[in-house]
């Protein structure tokens, strides 16, 4: 057999060889997909961020009105000085920032308290009805985040702040104090009652994974129950608390709905609502400065937290082998406690819904007597004297088109997010250990720390002009899809990675050996094997997109209104009953979606959160 010896080939052949190697590297599945994803993510995440920052440091067209010698497009610190160090800074930046921090910290801590206690009761005690508590705990999170805020308004609204009386004021006949009706306290409570689900899920997962022997060892050592909780259990669930903190804090920092319902009427602005009001009057650069500040504050807070607890994060695999769950006996009070917890949970879910529904049947706001009963807001024909002439929601074409937009947006977003998840998972897992894969993973995480409203703001600057082959997308439905998919990238990456890790690499290699190309391997091996993850990712995204408001509030136009933004529009116009009817429709759709999730094997809220 004449096999030629390996000789040092001439330069031209070596260049050819290097070229062939490069092409092969470039076209290998993981590299090709990683590069495509990278380009996509740079375009969807980094470029918009850059454009936003760029806008804040250049003169805009309208700045000529305020600064006579301004040249649009010229570099300037004008917006930053104006926002950070001028007479209006307090009103535009410092006060809202302070409010945001107060609200986010307060809501996160309260959510942590509620979620952790419930998790401990469910996982580590003999309280009856734990299964029910477990199921009820996820429902508040499924509903739109500002549901409780709107219900709060129905209950506690007061004439003092210039509104119409709420149910409480109607019943007791005396004005409700403003601090109870509006401002930080209601915002904190209503947000915490929505977000405690995060802590419940994270902490119960952590508690489930802790080997009780660790606690029993302390018990044998003579430690009291409270001491065990403080010294053993708490440090072990700390990483879970941290995850919950990061997730909740960054969400509340960027949340728009609650503060807009319960803060804006009394001029209690947070950064999110302040960004909106700047953008709404066309002051994009000023709004973007606020968005940049919001992003920075969120990142810094997350960073500090990770630093503080960072060194302790390494408890990951606790126990490992089979463990025995140690159950704390609550004694004779356990039934009372169970009843209390369940009543609390049901109230948090049912009371808001009941109040909202009750309100939609009241013709004149502020009058809650039966004589005021009406179906007008549901099925009434247009009447110029009521709700600015809007017909009842069930015969209102605007509502139908919004509902269709909501469903359409959620379906398309969910599809692309789930698809992206599989591809991201593939590129990240197959390239494990390479710099390219690490880069893809890191960039995919960025949207996680950008609050929703800021992410939406980023997209205004990006797509208001033509960029390369992409036409200006502002005001289009496509933009809503793009922003929703982009914001979901961190979640899709995480669930995609965990789905891909479950597919052994040999299964794909066996396909390679059999001669299948990349497309055939995806079609016949990888997609079928990750389909459960795809379905649960799809359904979860469907629900979160359906009730997303902060992200898209800056991007919707009358033609692209969705149900979530309609509720805000009616609220801001003072048509509370219409707003409440719309949010009830939205909740109904979301609950139907959630019911469908439950039908699918392997699909659950927990999985979708990457747990």
């Amino acid at each position, binding site marked *: 057999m004449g096999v030629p010896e390996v000789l040092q080939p001439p330069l031209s052949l070596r260049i050819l060889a290097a070229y062939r190697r490069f092409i092969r590297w470039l076209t290998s599945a993981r590299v090709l997909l990683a590069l495509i994803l990278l380009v996509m993510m740079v375009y969807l995440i980094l470029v918009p961020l850059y454009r936003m920052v760029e806008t804040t440091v250049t003169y805009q067209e309208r700045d000529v009105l305020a600064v006579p010698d301004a040249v649009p497009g010229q570099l300037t610190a004008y917006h930053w000085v104006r926002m950070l160090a001028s007479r209006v800074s307090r009103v535009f930046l410092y006060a809202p920032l302070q409010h945001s921090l107060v609200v986010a910290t307060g809501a996160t801590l309260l959510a942590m308290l509620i979620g952790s206690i419930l998790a401990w009761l469910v996982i580590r005690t003999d309280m009856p009805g734990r299964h029910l508590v477990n199921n009820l705990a996820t429902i508040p999170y499924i509903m739109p985040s500002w549901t409780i805020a709107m219900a709060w308004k129905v209950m506690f609204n007061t004439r003092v702040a210039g509104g119409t009386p709420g149910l409480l004021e109607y019943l007791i006949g005396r004005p409700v104090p403003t601090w109870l009706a509006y401002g930080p306290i209601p915002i904190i409570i209503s947000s915490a009652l929505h977000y405690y689900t995060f802590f419940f899920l994270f902490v119960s997962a952590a508690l489930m994974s802790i080997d009780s022997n660790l606690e029993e060892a302390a018990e044998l050592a003579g430690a009291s129950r409270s001491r065990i909780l403080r010294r053993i259990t708490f440090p072990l669930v700390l990483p879970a608390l941290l995850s919950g903190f990061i997730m909740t804090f960054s969400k509340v920092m960027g949340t728009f709905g609650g503060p807009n319902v319960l803060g804006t009427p009394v001029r209690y602005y947070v950064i999110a609502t302040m960004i909106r009001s700047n953008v709404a009057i066309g002051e994009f650069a000023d709004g973007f400065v606020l968005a940049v500040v919001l992003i920075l504050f969120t990142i810094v807070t997350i960073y500090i937290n990770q630093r503080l607890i960072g060194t302790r994060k390494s408890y990951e695999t606790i126990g490992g082998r089979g463990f025995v769950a140690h159950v704390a006996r609550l004694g004779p009070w356990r039934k009372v406690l169970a009843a209390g917890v369940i009543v609390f949970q049901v109230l948090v879910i049912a009371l808001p819904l009941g109040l909202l529904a009750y309100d939609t049947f009241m013709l004149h706001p502020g009058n809650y007597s039966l004589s005021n009963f009406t179906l007008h807001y549901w099925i009434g024909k247009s009447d110029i004297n009521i709700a600015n002439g809007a017909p009842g929601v069930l015969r209102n074409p605007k509502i139908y088109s919004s509902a269709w937009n909501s469903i359409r947006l959620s379906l398309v977003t969910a599809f692309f997010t789930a698809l992206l998840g599989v591809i991201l998972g593939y590129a990240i897992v197959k390239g494990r250990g390479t710099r390219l894969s690490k880069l893809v993973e890191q960039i995919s995480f960025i949207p996680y720390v950008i609050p929703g409203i800021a992410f939406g703001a980023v997209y205004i600057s990006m797509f208001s002009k033509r960029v390369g082959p992409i036409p200006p997308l502002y005001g289009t439905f496509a933009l809503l899809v793009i922003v929703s998919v982009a914001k979901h990238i961190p979640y899709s990456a995480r669930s995609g990675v965990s789905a891909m890790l479950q597919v052994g690499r040999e*299964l794909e290699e*066996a396909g390679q050996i059999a001669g299948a190309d990349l497309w055939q391997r995806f079609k016949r091996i990888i997609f*079928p*094997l990750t389909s459960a993850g795809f379905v649960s990712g799809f359904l979860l995204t469907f629900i979160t997109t359906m009730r997303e408001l902060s992200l898209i509030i800056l991007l919707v136009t009358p033609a692209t209104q969705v149900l979530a933004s309609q509720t805000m529009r009616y609220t801001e116009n003072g048509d509370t009953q219409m707003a409440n009817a719309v949010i009830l429709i939205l909740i109904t759709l979301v609950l139907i979606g959630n019911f469908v999730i439950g039908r699918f094997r392997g699909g659950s809220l927990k999985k979708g959160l990457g747990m």
Partner: protein
Amino acid sequence: MGTTITIKNLTKRFGDVVAVNNVSLTIEAETFITLLGPSGCGKTTLLRCVAGLEDPDEGEIYIGDRLVFSRARGISVPAGQRDIGLVFQNYALWPHMTVYKNMSFALEIRKLPKDEIDKRVKESLAEVKMLGYENRYPREMSGGQQQRIALARMLAYRPKVFLMDEPLSNLDARLRMDMRAELKRLHYVAGATTIYVTHDQVEALTMSSLIAVMKDGVLQQVDTPDRVYRCPSNLFVADFIGNPKVNLLEGVVDGQGCVDLGEFKVAMDTQGVEGKVVLAIRPEDIAAYTEPTPGAVKFTVYSVLPSGADSIIVARTGEREVTIRVPGISPIKMDDSVWLKFDPQMINLYDGATGNLVAVRKV
């Protein structure tokens, strides 16, 4: 039907680790070659390089006279076009496909007509005695059955080269015995050149026509099972092959036809070797006597391990400990005295410094 495989100066690195280090190997057509070595020695990596699942950092691979990989020329033929079949350690049957689909997959990609696919699937199933399992899913079968299907999946598209990565390691001992015989028979019938990776020396010795022993990515010896067993080319191979292990005794050649082990001397043909050596003798090449015998050295029995067909005796004198294998159940008991006689024809000498074979046994 088989084909030659030529590997030239192959090197594969993972970061700082050199998994395969400058390996050159020519495998004649229809050979059953085993890559043998402890875990982490690079044997699986070498197999994956041949399969086309890894691209080496240096070297060339030919299958037949077709160049399938060359770093210098920038060539790497995709795995699916190398005309090879691979059986994975964990079988890698696609869990969402039936046995039939698992087997027809590669044939469909090769765009074979439907009746030909059907014929091939049936034939291959018959070869592994699994006809009638076409509609089962992998999870509905035992480990041994899955193993057979994994083999059949490879047979179905009739590659010229079989690659097997520890295919029997997930089976229980009994099944493994049966499958060894089946695999050997399959190779005999199909005649495909086979590269078989294992860390199990019994598998290597019983099945292969050639064994390549690897350590730290470097080929240590490529030889027939018989040669690898009788004349390991260095101390690593000597120590790795054989159960119970070979006796390795450090000593010095005294220049008078003896190896001086300190406690006693062994007379043999030292073939001109000088200085420090390691004397290697297999446990079965030492005769044990219960009474003083000329030329035998007195030892004290430390432990006796009878196992039916033979008995292993561990004996000591001073600091020296040797292992002996005697046929049947031995009457020797612990703390008995035994007189051991080394068969001078059966001794290999290794250089004390390099560990390489310097004096080869006669038989």
